């Protein structure tokens, strides 16, 4: 059972600021959704390998050399605030 305090904790982890009404709604909906998913717990899966990915890929490497890349200007063109070649943000500490 997910409580409102759990929702507050998860919201902080997800960097979301929720209004009180949103906390109420998400508490109910997350309980409904996960309640509906309880059927999974009936399955015996002790010896089943988890599948993160359908492909039988392992590490995909390339040579460690400078290839074509975007210019700083084109990357910075979309940022809300900048200082020359840096992204600018409000104070951190």
């Amino acid at each position, binding site marked *: 059972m*997910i409580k409102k305090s*759990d*929702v507050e*904790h*998860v*919201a902080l*982890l*997800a*960097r*979301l*600021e*929720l209004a009180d009404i*949103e906390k109420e709604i*998400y508490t109910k*909906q*997350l309980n*409904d*959704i*996960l309640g*509906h*998913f309880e*059927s*999974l*717990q009936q*399955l015996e*899966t002790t010896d*089943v*390998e*988890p*599948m*993160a*990915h*359908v*492909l039988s*890929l392992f590490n*995909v490497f*390339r040579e460690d050399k400078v290839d074509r890349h*975007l210019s700083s200007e*084109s*990357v910075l*063109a*979309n*940022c*809300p*605030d900048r200082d020359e070649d840096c*992204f600018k*943000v*409000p*104070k*951190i500490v």
Partner: protein
Amino acid sequence: MSLYYLTAHELHDLLLKKEISAVEVNEAVFNRIESVEDGVKAYLTLTRDQAMRTAQSVDDMINAGRPIPPLAGIPVAIKDNICTEGVRTTAASKIIYNFIPPYDATVVKKLAGQHIAMTGKTNLDEFAMGSSTENSGFFATHNPWNRDCVPGGSSGGSAAAVAAGEAICAIGSDTGGSIRQPAAFCGVVGIKPTYGAVSRYGLIAFASSLDQIGPFTRDVTDCALMLNAICGHDPLDATSSTYEVQDFRRCLVNDIKGLKIGVPREYMSEGIDAEVRQVIEKTMSLLEMNGARIEETSLPHLGYSLPVYYLIAPAEASSNLARYDGVRYGFRSEGAQDVVDMFMKTRSQGFGAEVKRRIMLGTYVLSAGYYDAYYLKALKVRTLIKEDFNKAFEKFDILLSPTTPSPAFRFGEKTGDPLKMYLSDVFTIAVNLAGIPGLSIPCGFVNGLPVGLQLMGRPFSEGKLLQAAYTFEQNTDHHKKHPEL
């Protein structure tokens, strides 16, 4: 017949015969957009000037006697979660409402290499999270067959654009059915290729182990042409397959004699509309008449695919969407006290309700104490679902089902209850979990709304799906019907 309702291969033939020009084709489509777009709302951004320039260059090639690729000058719409250099790309989210990508997605680059004329960027559920396009951060798209109904989602804009004659073909993405379900609802052909068959580079990530790009077209021949254009290895996507790409035009053969088709009983029992069942049964008889051998089969763990999907996809999404923090692009909330406050306010004001719900769900199932019970459990059951498919494909070439349990639903019908909305994906999501290809083709109508047939195959058996779909299409005329707008 109006130019905007022709197929790409029909238009290509007319271009080669010089009976029409690429500029005329694009003018016809943009005039069509002008007259019907207010009622459909398929597009978030139109790129008319760019399309007309490409069309002119294709006409110049033809007039100079140079050969042109099969899709040259064809008006194609692109889902707005796929990056287009210099053209606003929003994923239908306010959090990146003003993002102008500095690069093209690989599919966009490949299509540009074919000289397609990009008509614009189509509407979707925010970050592709939804089944009706009602979750768009901007506006809803309407179903061209009945404007009181949804076009499906998340690629609702792409499907509606092709159905309404506002594009000849379109590109979408499919994480749990987001190509096949809207294709079914709008009466067009849509395919989710095998995971890894099409590069995801430049696709705004939702759930990386499930996302795959694919085309919407008016018929199976165009589907083959679009796959030819977009499949293939891409070093920029580490999950891109090195599987050798075939010319899918060779699969356009009207012959399914001896084809072994399995019908999983789980797909035909759970909550499927009686009328949809009738249409599917009629379809099966037609396939049998053409020589296919149809048998019932079973995918015992199919019923678990909905919970598995709605644990894995939000988990991956919560991680993928961590990047939207107001630092490098998009919306930033003003007046924050410090950087964490800025992250919190930006994300809370920028994301819509469904996206926040999935981030919350995903963060919860990945958080300490719940990871094993939910996320790890889901990954294990994903293995069981994949094994069910492997087993079925030992015996059958293709599996068949309705694409959706019922035709397009009405606006607002499912928005109040997220679970109800999630259930509309119940027939499509297992294909993404298993990483196999799935194709939806129009196979009839119920109350004036299209019904889709889903064909599923082994990894990299797109050719087989195309051949079966092509044979079906040659013996029916559903693909020749168009909505009245």
